[in-house]
C-alpha cells in the first residue's frame, strides 16, 4: 500500500530544525554531525511505505528522541529509513494501520495547538508536544499509547544499528573470556546485547 509521493525533506528544512535543536548557535564540530544527519535524511531512495511527509515527520520525531550528540543520533544511524522498511516488510497490517493512525493523531495534536501539522509547527513546539506524549505514555496507570510503542521501536532501531551498538554503546562480537567484576573505567558505555529475542 504505497502512498502518494510528496517532495522529500529539503536540506534547508533539516538544517532549520537541527539548528533550532542546538539552540541557534553551532560549532564546526556540530556542523559536521549536522551534515551526516542531513545526508542520511536526504538519501535519495524513495520511502517504501510512508509518504514523504510521513517520513519527514518520523525523521523529526526520532531526531528529537535520540539526537546527535558526540555520538550519532537516530537520523544518521538510519532509523527513519529502517522504520520505513519495517513498516513495509516486517509489520502486520494492523501495525501498519496503527502506525499511520498514530502519526495522524500527532498531527491532530499539533493542529489543536494551531499548526497545520506536526512537521509544520515550530521546532520548540514539536519538542514540547513529544515531551507531553512521553509524559502521558509513562504516567502511573497510563493505558498503552501509540507513542510508547513508537518509542520502543525507535530505541530498538537505534541501538541495534551499527552506530547505535558500536558508537553510542560498546559491542563485543567475540568476548573470548568472561571477566566478572571489572572496574567500569573511563569508557563507561554499556555493552550492547539484543537478548535472545526482542518483542516489539
Amino acid at each position, binding site marked *: 500500500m504505497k502512498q502518494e509521493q510528496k517532495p522529500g525533506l529539503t536540506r534547508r528544512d533539516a538544517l532549520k530544525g537541527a539548528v533550532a535543536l542546538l539552540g541557534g548557535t553551532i560549532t564546526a564540530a556540530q556542523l559536521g554531525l549536522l551534515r551526516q544527519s542531513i545526508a542520511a535524511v536526504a538519501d535519495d531512495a524513495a520511502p517504501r511505505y510512508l509518504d514523504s511527509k510521513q517520513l519527514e515527520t518520523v525523521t523529526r520525531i526520532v531526531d528529537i528522541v535520540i539526537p546527535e*550528540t558526540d555520538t550519532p543520533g537516530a537520523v544518521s544511524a538510519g532509523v527513519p529509513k529502517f522504520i520505513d522498511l519495517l513498516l513495509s516488510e516486517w509489520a*502486520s497490517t494492523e501495525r501498519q494501520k496503527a502506525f499511520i493512525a498514530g502519526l495522524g493523531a500527532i498531527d491532530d495534536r499539533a493542529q489543536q495547538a494551531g499548526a497545520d501539522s506536526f512537521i509544520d509547527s515550530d521546532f520548540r513546539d514539536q519538542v514540547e508536544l513529544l515531551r507531553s506524549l*512521553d509524559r502521558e505514555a509513562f504516567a502511573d496507570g497510563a493505558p498503552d499509547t501509540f507513542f510508547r510503542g513508537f518509542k520502543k521501536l525507535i530505541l530498538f532501531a537505534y*541501538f541495534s544499528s551499527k552506530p547505535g551498538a558500536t558508537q553510542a554503546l560498546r559491542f563485543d562480537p567475540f568476548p573470548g*573470556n*568472561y571477566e566478572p567484576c571489572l572496574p*567500569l573505567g573511563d569508557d563507561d558505555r554499556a555493552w550492547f546485547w539484543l537478548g*535472545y529475542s*526482542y518483542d516489539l
Partner: protein
Amino acid sequence: MTSDDNTVFDAIVVGSGMSGGWAAKELTERGLKVLLLERGRNVTHRVDYPTDGKPPWEMPYGGQVPEAEVARDYPVQKDCYAFSDYTKHFFVNDRENPYETTTGNPFAWIRGYHLGGRSLTWHRQSYRLSDLDFEANSRDGHGVDWPIRYSDIAPWYDHVETFAGISGSRENLPQLPDGKFQPPFQLHCVERAMKKKLEAAFPDRRLIIGRTAHLTAPTAEQTALGRARCMNRLECQRGCRFGAYFSSLSATLPAANRTGNLTTVTDAVVDSLVYDAGSERVTGVQVVDAHTLERRTHRGRLVFLCASTLASTQILLNSRSEQFPNGLANGSGMLGRNLMDHVGGVRATGTVPGFEDTYEKGRRATDLYVPRFRNVDERDERFLRGFGFQGGAYRDDWRRGTGTAGIGEAFKEQLQKPGPWRFGMSGFGEMLPDARNRVWLDSKRKDRWGIPILHIECKLRDNEMAIFDAMASDGKETLEAAGLTDVNVASNIAPPGLMIHEMGTARMGHDPGTSVLNKFNQAHDVSNLFVTDGAAMTSSACQNPSLTYMALTARAAAAAADMLKEGRI
C-alpha cells in the same frame, strides 16, 4: 536410499537430537552398523549456521521475524524465548506440523525438525538427578517406582559428562550430585555478595554457578572432534562455529561418523515400526520421504526410538497390529499417558544496591542455579516434590528506556551508560505423573505425510499450582534475603510444553502391567525395541532433563549391544 535396499542394519536409530546422537555414537562405537533416520533436513555443522556471528544490522529486520510470517507459520513456536529471525530455521513450521489440544488446556509443543534436532537450540543446563528423585514416586505413591537408582546411572552420568563437556562447580549437595566437571564459569562479585547473604539467612538455599554443556577446558578428545573453548558470545541457539556447546552436530554425530559404521538418512519421516508377531520383535521401520511422500521400509535387528518424547510416542501409537491394537509395546495401556513438563512462569527480579563502579566483559554462557531446597530434609505441607531457580545478575541496559519516561540528549546519554545492577531468576517446578495427562492419535486428521496427528491433553493440577504459588513466594523471599530491593515477582503460569521439558509418555518401570519400558529402556513387550528420549522418564524431577536422557541412552545402548552380541535379542 530406496525401498529395494535390502540392507539389514544392526540398529536403526530414529531421531538425531540429544538422545539419537548418543544412541548413534554408543552403538557405532560398539561395532554395530547403524542407520540414523532424521525426519528433517540435513544441517552441516558450521556451514548451516547462517546467522552465527551476525550483528542485528546485518539481519534484514534487526533479528525480528515479519509479523505476518509469525502469525501464519509460528503461532506456537514464537512463544519459545529463543525464537527469532536468528533461529527460526531451527523451529518447525506450525502450519505444516499440526497437533490438537483439548479446549481450555493449551499445550506448547516446541520442536525442531532437522539433523541435530533441539540439541542445537537447547539451553545447555546439565544437572544430575539424585535418589531424592529416583525414589520420589515410591515415597509418595504418585506414578510407579523408577526401576533404577542413582547408583545405576551414576557411571553413565560420568561417561556422558566427560565426553560432552559440562562446566560446573563441586558443591556436595545430596539432592544435586556433583559430576565430572570442566572448570566453572565465574560468579560476578555482585552474585558472590548475594550468595553470602542468602546462604547466611537460609543455609539450605544455595546460589551456585550453572552446570552447563560448554567447554571451558577442552579435552584432547573434544579438540580432536574440532571443538573449542566457549567464547562467551551467548548466541548459542544460532549454532556455534566453535562447537563450544554440546550438540549432536558438534559432538556425538562426528564421533559416530568416524567409526565408519554410521549411515545417516535425512528427510525420512518415520510413520511406524514394523512388528513381526511370530518372533515378537520389530523388524524394521516404515518411512515416508518428506518430499516425495514415497513409502519404504528399512530393516534392522534392533530399533532405538529417540525421536523426542511425543514424536516417539506418536510412532508407537501409530504402529498398530493385531497383537497391539492400541500401539506397539502398549500392553500396559500406559503408552501416551503420564505426560509431564516442568511448572514455569514465575520470574522474580530485584535491584542489587551498590556496585555501580563494577562491570563485566563477555556474555557468560550460563546463569546461576538455586538447587531444590523444599522437601529435601523437611517435609513441606503445602506440596509434594520441589523446584529450583535459574537466573543471574546483569546491569540494566538500553532496554530499560522502553519502560521509562524521557526523550532527547539527557535521555540518550543515560541509556548509553549501564543502569543499576539487577538480578532475575525463573522457577522450574516438578510435575507429578498423572495418567490423565495424555496423548492419543486423532482418528480423522492426518498430516501431509499421511500420519494421524497427535491430540495432547495436559493439565496442571493441584500440586503443580501449589508449587507455582510456592515458587512465587519463595522467589521473593530468596531475593530479599540476598539483599535485593524492589523485588518484583511476575507470575504468569506457563502452558505445559513451554518449559520444553515434555516427558513421561512411555515410562520405565518394574512391572510390564504398569509401564512401557524396563530398567534398560527396553520395551517390556518387544525385546529389540528401546526408547531412550524423554518418553522414558518415570518422574520429572525439577532439574533440566537432557543430561539424564543422554545418560539413559548411553546406558541402554551399552546394554542393547551386549544383548545383541550375546544373542539375547
